[in-house]
Every structure is written in C-alpha cells, then in structure tokens.
C-alpha cells in the first residue's frame, strides 16, 4: 500500500480473522455434529473436538437417502442446465448483437423481461407447464380447428401425440431452469465490448456468421463461458424449490432434496448427526469448484452479475 500503518494493518487482520471465524465456526460445528453418534449429540455440553462416528454417519446418511442415485441425478441435471443455458444464450446473444432483422428489439425485450422474474412467483402454472408441455399446442390446434381437420383427413389424433409430461424426467428438471435470460444478458454485454474492427476484418475476409462466431467470437468468449459454467454449476447444484416440485418419485430427486429429507422436522427424531454428515458430501462438489476454480468464478460473478 501507499504508506505503512501498523495499527491499521492490525485492525485489518482482526477484521479478516473475525470474518473468517464467522464463516468457519458454523462449518466446524456442523463437522463436529456430523462426527458424533446419535446419543452423544443430544448431551450437553457440545464437544469441541470431533467424535469418531464421521464415516459411520456418512455411510448411514448416504444409504438412508439413496445418495448414489441422487448424485447421478444432480450431476445430469446440473450439467444439462449448464450446457443448455450456455448454448442457447450464446446463440441468442449473438443474434441480438450481430444481426439486423425485423422485430429485433421486440425479441430483445421479450428475452430480457424474463431475466429476473423469479420462478418462485409462478410455481403452480410452471408445474402444470412441465406436466403438460403439449397443452398450449393442443389448445392452439383445437382452437384453429386443425385437430379436427387432421383427424378427419388422416385419422391421426393430433392431441394424443402432444401429451408430453416432463414431471419426473431430466428434461423437466432442466428445461425450465434454462428459461432465464441472465446468461444471454452476460454474453450480450460482453459482445458489446468486442471491437467492431474484428467483424469488419472478418467481413473483408468474406467470413460468414458461422465462421465469425467459431473463429473469432467464441475464442474471445472462452473465459466468460468458463466463468459462467462455474457459476451456473454452483447455483444449479444448489437448486431446491424446483426439483422439489418437479419430482414425485424418490429416484428422480436431487442431492439437495436428499439432504432436506434428512433434516429433522417437528415430530421426528433429532438425528442431526446424519443431516450434518450429509451436508458435507452435498456441499462437496460446489465447494471444490469454489476452492479450485476461484479465479474463474470471481471473474464470472463480478462480470456476469448472476
């Protein structure tokens, strides 16, 4: 820094130490709780050092909520959301910033209005949308009289072919979470800062949109894509309300739901040792991401605003 000031430096370390303690104490206490057996957990005083039941608790919690299956589900769903969202966002942002076409601003606003409208605000209709994706199409075809026409002409029952229920399926868990424009917004912001000279040069080389996208824009976006992937991974691994609503069978649940099922509620035995142990392996993948991909993540959070 600019000048030396030992006293201020001391205060700064003190602040940081307090901050680190605020973060670490809950984590440590939950680790200790996760290492105790059921009986010891309920006795005061709470021990300062961990017990020796950590692995036993981990194993029991793992089996109790069938985490092998849940981990697989979480991985598929999370990676699906990350890949899907980045893909469609890149495409849409590219279209919005680099193309002139009719209704461009209308599309722009249609996408961006959806940006921060939280899904919590439309729980039940979205649930029904997932359960019956074809519903609106059926209504449309029925309203236009197309259904009857096709049926009389070909004998084909259109409305039967449009029964797509995505409850308890991976697409049902993935698609609605892709439906937010925050990533599109990020890429749009980034594309805006890409120098115009690059496209001018590409055009001089007779490069079309596809070549420009893959040869120039995508390589430039690489670090943004990486950062966004990290952030989306963490955010979606930790999703709760959505998977809770969209799964009705135990083997389609995600790890967060598994953890939730181990949290003792009223009228349930206080097996906090199991839920604390489970919290550890549920938190592990995003925690590893934070620890090892911190640079990418920090960049993404700060630039990506999501």
């Amino acid at each position, binding site marked *: 820094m600019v000048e030396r000031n030992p006293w201020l430096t001391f205060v700064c370390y003190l602040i940081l130490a307090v901050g680190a303690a605020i973060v670490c104490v809950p984590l440590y206490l939950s680790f200790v709780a996760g290492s105790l057996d059921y009986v010891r957990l309920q006795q005061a005083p709470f021990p300062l050092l961990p017990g020796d039941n950590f692995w036993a608790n981990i194993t029991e919690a793992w089996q109790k909520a069938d985490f092998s299956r849940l981990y697989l589900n979480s991985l598929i769903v999370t990676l699906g959301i990350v890949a899907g969202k980045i893909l469609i966002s890149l495409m849409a942002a590219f279209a919005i910033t680099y193309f002139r076409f009719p209704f461009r601003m209308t599309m722009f606003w249609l996408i961006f209005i959806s940006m921060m409208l939280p899904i919590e605000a439309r729980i039940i209709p979205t649930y029904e949308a997932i*359960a019956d994706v074809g519903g609106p199409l059926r209504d449309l075809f029925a309203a236009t009289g197309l259904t009857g026409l096709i049926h009389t002409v070909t004998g084909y029952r259109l409305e039967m072919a449009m029964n797509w229920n995505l*409850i308890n399926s991976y697409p049902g868990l993935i698609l609605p979470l892709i439906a937010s424009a925050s990533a599109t917004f990020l890429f749009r912001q980034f594309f805006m800062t890409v120098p115009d000279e690059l496209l001018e040069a590409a055009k001089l080389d007779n490069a079309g949109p596809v070549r420009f996208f893959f040869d120039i824009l995508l390589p430039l976006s690489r670090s943004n894509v990486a950062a966004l992937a990290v952030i989306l991974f963490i955010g979606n691994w930790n999703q709760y309300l959505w998977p809770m609503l969209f799964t*009705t069978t135990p083997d389609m649940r995600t790890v967060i739901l598994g953890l939730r099922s181990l949290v003792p509620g009223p009228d349930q035995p206080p097996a906090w040792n199991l839920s604390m142990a489970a919290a550890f392996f549920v938190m592990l993948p995003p925690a590893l991401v934070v620890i090892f991909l911190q640079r990418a993540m920090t960049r993404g959070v700060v630039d990506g605003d999501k």
Partner: protein
Amino acid sequence: MKRFAPLSLGVALAALTALPASAQDRVQIEWWYAVNGRLGDLAQEIITRFNASQDQYEVVGTYKGNYEESMAAMVAAYRVGQQPTILMAAERGFMTMLNSGAVVPVNQLMAAQGYDVDWDDFIAPVAGFYVVDGEPAALPFNSSTPILWYNADQFRAAGFDGPADTWQELEQQLYTLKAQGISECPMVLNGDFQWGMLENYSAINDMPWGTKANGFDGLDTEFVYNTTGVVDQATRMGKWMEDGVLHLAGEGMNPQQMYIAETCATLIASTAGHAGVEQGAQFDWSATYLPHEAGITPKNSTIGGGALWVVNGKSDAEYAGAAAFLNFVSSPELQSWWSGETGYVPVTNTAYETMRDAGYFEAHPTREIAILQLSRGTPSDNSRGFRFGNHNQATAILVEEMQAIWTGQKTAQQALDSAVARGNDILRQYERIHAGR
C-alpha cells in the same frame, strides 16, 4: 450456423428419450401413504404381504410426507394426470376428498370389482363418520383417536394413582409434578395438538365447533369455537406454556420421544403411538382417557387418522388391483394384526371381537381405551366429527393463531376470534365453489 440446429435438437432428443420407463409384468398400483417411522415400516410390511399373496398386482407404496403434504402432492399430481390409485388421507381432508370429483367411492369400486364387503361390520364411530348418505366414501384403515399418555412412575412419585379425569384436577397434578421437581416437562405438546387438545376437547365436552352439526348438515356451516369453552382451554394452554408446565418440542424434537425418554411426563396424542411407545419406553408407561371439564358427562371423542381413498382416472386393471388390495387390508386377520402392531383402532367389529376374545385387551389394557372412548355415550351433533371444507387450511390458520397466544402476541380470545374469522372465509369460499354438490 448449420451445425447448431442439429446439435441442440440432438440434445433435446437425447434428453427426452431419457424419460424413466417401467416395464413390469404385474399391474402396478400406486399407494401414497402418510405414516412414517415404525408405522411406515408396518405399512411397507402390509405391501410386502399383499404382493406375496398373489402374482397379478404389485402395490408400490410411497411415503409422501404427513397428511397435509401427501394431500398437496396428490392434488398437484391429479391436476396433471399423475395421481396414485390409492391415497391415505386424514379425516381433516374428508370433505376436500369427498367433494373433489376426483374419487371413486369405495363401495362402488368394490361392488364393480365383485367383492362383497359387509359395510355394517365397521364399528359405529368409524362408520358414522365415513358413511355419507348410506355409502362409505373411503375405506377406514388407520383410524385412531387421541388419548392421554402418562408416566406412571412419575405420577406415583408425586403421590397420584394416575391422571385425574378433569382438566382442573389434572392441572393441579401437572403443577405438582413440576413443583416437586419430578418432571421439568409435565406435558409436551404434540405436533397435531389442535386435534387432541382443542377439537376433541370440544367434542368430549359437547361444545359446537361449528354450526350445522359441525358441517354434517350443510356447506353453509360456520366456525363458532371462539364462543365456547374452547377459549378457556386455549387460555389454559397459554398459561401452562408460560408456567413451563406445557412444553413445545420444537423443530427436530419428537414429542413422543420426549415422552419415551422420560423427559416429559404426559402427552396427548394418537393411540397409534403404541407402536413407538411399546418399542421404546423403558419405564412404567400407561395411557388413559382424555380429561374433561368438571361437572359434565363426557361424550365420545372423534375419529381421526387415515382412510384409503380410491382416485379416479385409472385403468380397469388398476382398479381391480386396488379392490384386491382394499379387500386384503380390510380382512379381519390383517385388521387385527395391524391394530395389534400399531395401536390403531380395529375398524371392524369382527376384528375387534377377535382381539377381545383372544384376551388381547386384558393383556394390553391401554389398547382398548381408544375404542371405548370413541364409543362412549350417545354421539351428539357436537361429537360426531368434523366435516368442514378445506379443513387443512382452516387448521393451519388455527395452529398459527394458537402460536400467537404463547408467543405473547394475542390473548386466547383474540387469537380464536381471528382464527374463526379467517376460517369462515375459507368455508365461504369452499361453499361458493362447491355450491350444488
């Protein structure tokens, strides 16, 4: 660009084909139930037994949370055509299920599938609640009623033979237990306390909970429990809470376990608690009738617990399986086994008599309290049960308002006035929607 469209299409297709598929030879019957812990294990055992008893059907049982949660799950599933074939719903959800247009009345189902069920064999308090216009709407299965559980060792230590019959005397006993240092927690509040300590209080003391015979005589019923002795009972609960005589288990603590662990001396909870208490209690535990007000002749308590509802919109094969399963669970053998293991009331007279004749109740006297309490005296309009539309909602409001008493925000009268006003809104809304049904 050309590369993109096929790629995203491919992703979508791959994802769509990953839909879980189940190919089973047997017809699968989905049953959603609302009991867990020891009771959940026993429900699974019934399924295992049924599945082993024949090779046409396979019942798949899923615990869907408590009664409210499984009802909500069922409604959500029904709206999108994912409903189970059989649902265990509580007495609280009776009207919601009955008027839903989403159920197949069990007697119609059984008759259509060629089963001859002797509906007259169901014990009176159970039949009295579940039979509408002479037709049973659901199959009573895990029927229960709240009783007073107590720690006989601790009562003896305080110089009592057992809990007193009236609330006034019981109050003194509980305060004595506390004052003498015998129990820090003379009574623990159960999760569904409104059922044991308010609704059944109202019934046993012959007070109206609502007009129109508690909803039996029409949808234009109104709650009136803010004008009866229930207010005094709520006041009493608030006072006990403040004096540390009545304790709240709270999140992550099981009231029954606090009783089993001898932390708390008494507990008002379902007779189905036998399953857990018999398994876990290491002291001289016992149970008795719910207390009543001094100077009155107590009425019967009301039926609670679950019944099995058959949901419409399923295939004939599934209904055949459902009927076979219902026939299986209502057989006297299974009923007496289930009642014996769980503490639920035997729902048919045959099952009850089988148990009585085998001397079961002499060996396990607390097992008979529920059925005797349920059939005590002649039922009045106030004690037949509660048939209110959307009763889950009104109950959630009542619980919330009761909490406002012991958090010191409201007096008992204010809290119940508010609960009644809000509850009546729900009844009116229900009446509007179901007019003409």
